[in-house]
């Protein structure tokens, strides 16, 4: 069984297509692909651009047969770009901010922690810290390789990569078409 047919089988299994129907479609597809190959016809000539997207092809076939519900593509097609555009914009802004923070040179981000120190740990208690048990601020100055900026940069890169992956997946499947 060709790799294309095997990927279709996996998609049908994921979509809970009953085994007898999946077996039937896989057998028909494998026979047709085999005959086409023997006659020198490529899978692309037989399947169009679906030859490069077995998951969408398998889902579309099963949906059109009424085996699985047809996904509401049109509603998603309008909503998803807006969400994707916003997500991509936020990721890009985060990347720019992180890059600017790193390029400025001087560490500008500090971590401030507030804590209450038990009296027995203050030995000897510095006079300017005030009475034992009082709340005080501990300022931790970050080093030159400020972790906050690097974390922001890393998150922005990961987010942009995820956005690129989402864009590549969006709007793949369409109805079948032919040309003279």
């Amino acid at each position, binding site marked *: 069984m060709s790799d294309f047919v095997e990927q279709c089988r996996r998609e049908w299994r994921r979509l809970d297509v009953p085994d007898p129907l999946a077996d*039937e*479609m896989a*057998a*028909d*597809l494998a*026979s*047709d692909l085999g*005959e*086409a190959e023997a006659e020198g016809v490529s899978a692309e*000539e*037989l*399947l*169009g*651009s*679906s030859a490069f997207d077995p998951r969408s*092809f398998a889902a*579309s*076939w*099963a*949906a*059109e*047969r*009424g085996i699985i519900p047809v996904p509401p593509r049109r509603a998603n097609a309008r909503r998803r770009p807006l969400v994707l555009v916003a997500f991509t914009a936020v990721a890009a802004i985060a990347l720019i901010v992180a890059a600017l923070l790193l390029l400025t040179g001087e560490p500008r981000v500090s971590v401030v922690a507030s804590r209450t120190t038990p009296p027995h740990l203050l030995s000897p208690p510095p006079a300017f810290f005030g009475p034992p048990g009082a709340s005080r601020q501990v300022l931790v100055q970050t080093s030159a390789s400020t972790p906050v900026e690097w974390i922001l940069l890393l998150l922005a890169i990961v987010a942009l990569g995820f956005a690129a992956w989402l864009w590549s997946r969006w709007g793949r*499947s*369409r*109805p*079948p*078409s*032919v*040309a*003279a």
Partner: protein
Amino acid sequence: MALGTQRRTELLRGVLDLCLLAVMDEGPAYGYEMTKRLRDRGLAIVGEGSIYPLLGRLERDGLVETYRAASNGGPPRKYYRPSSAGRLALALGVSEWRAARDAVDTVLATVKVEVVS
């Protein structure tokens, strides 16, 4: 996709089901066999998709009947042929197609095309 190919694709998208019903009305056929019959008449699958989802829709809508039989020495194949509802849909669809084609021809008949070599 080139502009000419894209236009042909758009034009034929709405009548591919009629083309499939027409070629299987000549005699029962399995998927690849229908593709060959279309190709012999100058129609090749391009762009997105293929005939398989469309055959699935015709089957779901009761416009085709199917049965399994051995092909020429090969494995058993699923053959398609138009049902009575499919033949009616084909007749109506062909009538609509011819009316639309004639109307478009009438509009475009006044256009003078000059081919500059």
